[in-house]
């Protein structure tokens, strides 16, 4: 989950690279590490077997610097792709803010792609996440293989959600940064929709106006830029966008009006939860109660004063009585 830490002025997001074994997840991270350079990419940590296969996960922090006063970081993880490491994969997936599925374009690996994708869907479901609704992209890797499957076929078999797809040759660094950037933007967009500052006084008004403002993305998306590695024609099955997806072509976060009804986070409150109590409060029902209470409180005060006087008198009489006796 995105962590927003106002004390440290940090926004931290978790990205998970998922996919079958040997599809190029770790290679993606290695190339990002090389390309992003020092100062942005932190150290790349791998928990791997002696044969250099990922055992638990690879991890690399990516610090993009100050954004609107907040230090913004993406934490990149890969999962072990081999089938029998499912429990580990599931652990790594916990708390993911976005997922890149790295598919292998080799025709012989298609069954592995399908199995891994199915596994991802199941694991996401266990965390109550839906691939249609979370920031999710697919990377078709190894596009330089002579027998690489056409993108249209990959889309038909793997991208039934119509999520953005990117062609890549990870070992050469092609398409790697585009994939990461595409997903990062989706995460940021979503975060901004949920947490964008709205002054309390104008919340009710903006709730009414926001949807129209938000619903104004460039409607028919401009034609996507061709990928550096793009060789295949882009015709896609129903729904999926062509390769690679220009961020603007993504359908807008349409259901903006519904967002205001997001319940407050269980453990940590969120700014989005503010409007509902404010707007749902009915002045007619809440006001009379305090007034009645105020009357009752006044009566209680007089009773207390009377009791103090009575007790004071009794104490004085008692004292005088014993004084005479002594």
């Amino acid at each position: 989950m995105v962590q927003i830490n106002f004390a440290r002025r940090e926004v931290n997001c978790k990205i998970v690279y998922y996919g079958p074994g040997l599809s190029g997840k770790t290679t993606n991270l290695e190339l990002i590490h090389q390309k992003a350079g020092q100062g942005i990419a932190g150290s790349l940590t791998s928990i791997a077997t002696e044969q250099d296969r990922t055992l638990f996960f690879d991890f690399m922090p990516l610090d993009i610097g100050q954004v609107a006063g907040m230090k913004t970081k993406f934490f990149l993880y890969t999962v072990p792709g081999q089938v029998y490491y499912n429990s580990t994969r599931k652990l790594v997936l916990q708390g993911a803010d976005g997922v890149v599925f790295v598919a292998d374009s080799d025709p012989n690996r298609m069954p592995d792609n399908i199995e891994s994708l199915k596994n991802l869907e199941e694991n996401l479901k266990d965390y109550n996440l839906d691939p249609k609704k979370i920031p999710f992209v697919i990377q078709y890797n190894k596009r330089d293989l002579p027998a690489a499957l056409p993108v249209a076929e990959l889309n038909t078999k793997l991208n039934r959600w119509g999520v953005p797809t990117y062609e890549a040759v990870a070992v050469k660094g092609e398409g790697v940064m585009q994939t990461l950037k595409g997903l990062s933007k989706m995460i940021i967009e979503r975060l901004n929709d949920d947490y964008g500052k709205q002054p309390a006084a104008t919340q009710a008004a903006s709730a009414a106006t926001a949807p129209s403002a938000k619903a104004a993305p460039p409607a028919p998306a401009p034609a996507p830029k061709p990928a550096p590695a793009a060789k295949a024609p882009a015709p896609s099955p129903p729904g999926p966008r062509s390769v690679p997806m220009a961020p603007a072509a993504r359908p807008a976060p349409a259901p903006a009006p519904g967002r205001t009804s997001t319940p407050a986070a269980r453990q940590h409150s969120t700014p989005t939860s503010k409007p509902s109590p404010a707007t749902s409060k009915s002045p007619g029902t809440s006001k009379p109660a305090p007034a009645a209470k105020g009357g009752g409180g006044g009566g209680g005060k007089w009773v207390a004063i009377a009791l103090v006087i009575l007790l004071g008198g009794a104490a004085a009489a008692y004292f005088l009585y014993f004084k005479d006796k002594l």
Partner: protein
Amino acid sequence: MAMGKSDEGMRSSRLVFYKEDIEKIERVLAQFLKSANAKCALLVDKDGHLVTKSGEASTYDMDTISALVAGSFAATKQMAKLLGEEEFSIMFHQGKKDNIQLSLVGDRTILAIIFDDKTTLGMVRLYAGQVASKLGTLFDEIAQRKSEAESISKDFGQAAKSKLDDVFGS
């Protein structure tokens, strides 16, 4: 891709930490370090993000340590389940100079304490138990109070997108 409101699983569990809460947590951690004579204390959420730290932590790669702390805790939890336990609430790793103890605080944070031979495991355990309970109470208070004084700027999205273009190339 429609990102509607229905995916509450992700949205409702997002973590927000406000400055006033972190200051309280830091005070508790500083007091703990003094009592237990430990080197440093890190509070990490279960997703591997650092919440806050206290003590001599400047030389460590905090992001990676936090990710590994959360990863090893998650792996141990799986191990516990296989053994019929719900969770192991404490983990301890002993080194030649430095040691680290991890203990669960509340539902979703882990306290990592790094200490050397200036103190003992017993002292650390004793005070860690106390601090875990204090932090647990603090988290309950935080959860019940709705602090909405701070929010990210509405320009954040646009600024972040331009930054991503700068960093990754447009």
